[in-house]
């Protein structure tokens, strides 16, 4: 019997690459055999759950640092290692991926997967989903910027194809806009990080985080050393903004968000779920993992304008959501708005002043909110898909009074909507409360202004519920299928559980967040 | 016990025989056979060095292990290629397969 902990050295890698193996395994079956493909994909996608549970079981909640790290030299003359690990910042997201990705694949039937239009490409669809999952895992676990960036892009490419192949009518334009937009952001980030590498000589995020405050100095020195005397002073800020743009596009932050509604509107539902439920979290996670530790000083200087941008994201997102005429648009903009809270939390923490407790609360809240939003937005999009599958579209005009013929649908949708609008007892509230409570202590005025977002959220979500489910019944329809019920029930259970007992989820991140905040000072 | 020299000489001889096979045979498969012989001779060398050197340094042995695995893959792919070539050119004589264009 081999001693148990020995699996740890490859736990994270195995987790990351299992879905990829599944994607390869898909090629054992016919391209149009959607059922077999789904089964294989589901197996490959849910297999990491076991590993994730093992990881959770062995995870030392009290330790702030990274655990389960593997560091193998890769391209040594460039300082590139294969370096992965998990800490409190990524653990919750890792678990979120482990749950949502299989759930999405489980729910990917017919319209949800965009397979009604292209039944012959079922295999491609599931393969792309699995590759996407690997990209997500990789992004959340990589600790060396180099391969972190590879994973970051690796999650972009399959999404491009998912939209391009399985999307709605305007899919081509949407996919190109999505790709070019996010790719430009990524390029800016890559350039910025290359400058950081040239100035510091390492790609390793941990090493960089350890340097922390010295990085601006080094950047200036580097600029000087290559003869750009006049650029030296502005170098740190320029690099910071370049890196920030990469993440801000992904989250997205107003005014870099316009790719999002179009992409969400055209993507297949399963793709949209991954986009909003998981990929948008990559940006926030990047802010936590890279921007906060590396550019703390820069961030502190720009905290106020950044928070104003976050505020704009929250409020304008919500207002625009209220103006949407269909469910998808509404959920898209609501995603923008909700992630605005996360941005607000991160930027508020980035401000130099403030007490430890409030910063920790805000950051814990950001992570909590990501999980909560992941669950609720997934459900909403899934239901948007269910409506589209039944009526061929989710414009409000052709809907109404669905609760009569589909009471379970109405009930579960209502639950998800209320979770999204922050009803206490469901997870959304806890996240929002923590963020607001933290931000309020750091920057009261902006927090007060952002509270308006809660009202607006309630406004557009209730309007949506009213237009779809209440009033006289216009179309008759079937209630949720068993599969749809299972997906929604799983999500609702998560939302309810974490809404009532947030402690387990917060404890995952608390140690890492505390240490991060302490390091920021 | 034979000396290391003897093993090395034997391996060199076997290597040369393999090389001769590669250079002189007309049939592609037998060229491949020669290559396998050369690989085997090299393996013998590696193991002999392990045997006569530091027993704890297992890198040579690992290399042999990997070498054998690679040889397996190589044989499979090589023979598959040969079969493909055979189908394309209807021959397995090396001299007749001289066109570089497909």
């Amino acid at each position, binding site marked *: 019997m081999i001693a148990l902990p020995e699996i740890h050295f490859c736990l994270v890698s195995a987790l990351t690459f299992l879905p990829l193996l599944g994607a390869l395994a898909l090629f054992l079956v016919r391209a149009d055999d959607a059922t077999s493909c789904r089964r294989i994909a589901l197996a490959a996608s849910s297999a990491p759950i076991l590993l994730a549970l093992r990881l959770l079981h062995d995870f030392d909640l009290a330790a702030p640092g990274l655990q389960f790290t593997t560091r193998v030299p890769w391209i040594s003359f460039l300082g590139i290692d294969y370096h992965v690990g998990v800490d409190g910042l990524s653990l919750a997201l890792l678990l979120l991926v482990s749950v949502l990705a299989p759930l999405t694949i489980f729910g990917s039937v017919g319209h949800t997967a965009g397979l009604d239009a292209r039944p012959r490409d079922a295999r491609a669809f599931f393969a792309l989903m699995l590759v996407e999952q690997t990209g997500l895992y990789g992004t959340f676990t990589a600790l060396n910027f180099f391969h972190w960036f590879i994973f970051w892009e690796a999650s972009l490419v399959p999404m491009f194809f998912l939209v391009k192949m399985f999307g709605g009518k305007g899919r081509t334009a949407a996919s190109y806009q999505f790709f070019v937009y996010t790719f430009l952001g990524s390029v800016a980030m890559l350039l910025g990080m290359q400058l950081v590498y040239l100035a510091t000589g390492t790609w390793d995020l941990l090493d960089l985080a350890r340097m922390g405050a010295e990085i601006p100095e080094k950047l200036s020195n580097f600029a000087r050393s290559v003869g750009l005397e006049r650029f030296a002073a502005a170098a740190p800020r320029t690099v910071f903004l370049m890196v920030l743009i990469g993440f801000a596009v992904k989250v997205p932050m107003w005014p870099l968000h316009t790719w999002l509604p179009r992409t969400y509107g055209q993507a297949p539902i399963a793709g949209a779920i991954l986009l909003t439920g998981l990929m948008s979290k990559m940006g926030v996670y990047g802010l936590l993992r890279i921007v906060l530790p590396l550019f703390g000083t820069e961030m502190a200087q720009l905290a106020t304008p950044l928070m104003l941008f976050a505020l704009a994201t929250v409020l304008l997102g919500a207002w625009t959501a*209220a103006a949407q005429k269909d469910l998808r648009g509404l959920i898209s903009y609501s995603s923008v708005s909700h992630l605005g809270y996360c941005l607000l939390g991160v930027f508020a923490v980035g401000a130099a002043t403030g007490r430890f*407790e409030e910063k920790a609360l805000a950051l814990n809240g950001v992570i909590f909110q990501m999980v909560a939003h992941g669950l609720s937005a997934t459900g909403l999009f899934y239901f948007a898909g269910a409506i589209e599958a039944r009526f061929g579209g989710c414009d409000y005009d052709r809907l109404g009074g669905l609760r009569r013929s589909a009471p379970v649908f109405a009930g579960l949708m209502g639950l998800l909507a209320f979770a999204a609008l922050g*009803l206490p007892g469901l997870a959304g509230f806890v996240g929002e409360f923590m963020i607001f409570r933290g931000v309020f202590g750091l920057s009261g005025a902006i927090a007060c202004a952002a509270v308006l977002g809660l009202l607006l959220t309630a406004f557009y979500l209730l309007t949506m519920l009213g237009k779809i489910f209440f009033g006289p019944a216009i179309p008759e329809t079937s209630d949720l299928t068993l599969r749809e019920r299972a997906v929604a029930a799983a999500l609702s259970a998560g939302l309810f559980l974490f809404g009532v007992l947030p402690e387990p989820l917060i404890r995952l991140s608390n140690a890492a967040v505390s240490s991060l905040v302490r390091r920021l000072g | 016990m034979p000396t290391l020299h003897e093993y090395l000489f034997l391996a060199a001889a076997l290597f040369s025989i393999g090389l001769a096979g590669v250079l002189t045979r007309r049939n592609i498969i037998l060229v491949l056979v020669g290559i396998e012989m050369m690989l085997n001779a090299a393996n013998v060398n590696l193991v002999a060095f392990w045997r006569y050197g530091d027993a704890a340094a297992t890198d040579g042995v690992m290399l042999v292990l990997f070498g054998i695995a690679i040889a397996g893959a190589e044989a499979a792919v090589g023979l598959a290629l040969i079969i493909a070539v055979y189908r394309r050119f209807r021959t397995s004589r090396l001299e007749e397969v001289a066109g570089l264009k497909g």
Partner: protein
Amino acid sequence: MSWISRNLWLIPLLPFAAAGITAFFPRAWRRASAATALAGIATAFALSLVALARTMSPAFAAAGGREAFNFAWFTSGETTARLGFLLDPLSAIMLFAVSLISLLVFAFSVGYMDEDDNFTRFFCFLSFFAGSMLALVAANSLLLIFVAWELVGLSSYLLIGFWYRKPSAAAAMKKAFLVTRVGDLGFFIGLLWFYQGAGTSLFYDLGNGALEGARLDALAGGAAATTVALLVFCGAAGKSGQFPLHVWLPDAMEGPTPVSALIHAATMVAAGVFLVARLFPVFELSPAALHAVACLGAFTALFAASIALAQWDLKRILAYSTVSQLGYMMLGLGVGGVVPGIFHLTTHAFFKALLFLGAGAVIHNCHHEQDIRRLGGLKDRMPLTFAAYVVGAFALVGLPPFSGFFSKDEILAAAWRYPDHCPWWGARLPFWAALGGAFLTAFYMTRQVRYAFFGAPRGEGAAHAREAGRWMLAPILILAAISVVAGFVGFPGANRFQAFLHPTGNGHGFVPGIPLASAALILLAIGVAWKVYGPAALAAGAKDPIERRFPRIFALLHGKYFVDELFAATLLRANRALGAAGSWFDRWILDGLAVGGLSVFVRALSFVNHLLDERIFNRGFDRGCGALQEAGFLNRRLQNGLVQHYLKVATAAAVLLAALLVLLTKRNGP
């Protein structure tokens, strides 16, 4: 700490559990769901009685008059957010009232909702509501109150929209939630501020709570107390329908009548009053905040009562009466502290529940006819209901010796004495407003009773009305009995209620003129109304006398002072405009101008690049390639495509190199 204090959480949990269970019941399990819900609330009521008994025991007073049971919710950083439940006289009396009225309304609903398809769902929602409300009143933490507060909002949303197929109900449910949420924004900021200022959200925690000791002092500094109090009052105003957030309450009558009785009369709307009472230590720190509460309360009392004069809907009249009475309670809190406000809250809960259930019985037995112009003559057809309704009406208008008399009198007395400790020119106004409100109350209640129960039946429904069934009648009669006697616990001079709720306070004394004056005023109002709404006015098709006499004023009152329209024209329009603007900005400026412009720019750039490549660079490059190709022909000889040939060359080279190596290196060893 007693058993009940440690297990106070059971009281809200039981109805919650009932709701959770019935949620999974299929539609056909009607009896089972009703039984589950009733069992849940009955047990909760029993436990509330235990709690009440505990608070009355001497041991409890010896233990400091309150027992809190706190527990950790989550830990972030190094601080733990804690929640808790609190047993003190205030919560005990609220638990008692809420659970008792809920129990009665549940029983009533069994009869009332008898024919509804979604019977099981109704009991699920009702139980959920009862649980939320009980959690709210038992909470020992502002955060927990907020949680329960929102859940109460959710259940009211669900119950108002119970008949969701009616567009008006669908609109009303949304309106109710949103308007209260406007107030909740203030509450939420207040909660954040309170939490920030006190460092805890617990009220009482062995001296470390926010409402006791050093932490309360910390709140007292600066403008914090005023700000927190006013912000929290925003929430209370939203939930308790104070002007200008009262607009949702009358619309909420779209829900089934038991819902109106339970939520929008007896308990939920009282949550705002309860909240102010619970946070009274904070309000006490800020006279300005109390001012605001008193003034707004008084204004709302008068304002809503005037609207009630010109309504035709049986339930809407009661709804505006509720708004008005809530104004009284706020006034009581503002001018006289916890006791008058809560006393009126309690009595009002019983008699307003009675009135609503009576109205429900009428509506149910008149085939869902709610327009009082189409009712009439029910006095003979539903005598028991009529009697109970009249009792409720007397209690509401404050006719001695019904319960409303005592509670309202106490508020009036406190308002009368308000200028004594508030030297401000406007301090007298609340009293007069309240008095005017009392007059109007008596007037519109008389009008309503006359229209509904007297004269000849004017509609199909009223003509075929019968006495209500057992399930409906029993709760009505019980409530009527309570409404008659409940006031005596607050008999002036021997105020048991005061002694129980606020033993250290000295009350407001007894001003003998005020009860006499108010009783006289009320009798006058009843008399005038009786006269005005005489048989002539009650004839079928007759116009309302006031409408006939003062059509402009009636239209203004009937249009509820057009507050809704005002909101629609300002706030809602602004909101819509902002949404459209955001959309437009995204579409045309960000997407169109910025991204589109950029793409045009990039395209132009690539076109230029293309020209450069094709015309300039490629020319030279092609020539170079040609030269290389020439050279390549020479090399071609070597490349004869024979693998063995290559190999031989390579081997020869390797042999040569190896030979060199061998020859050039030194000999090593033997």
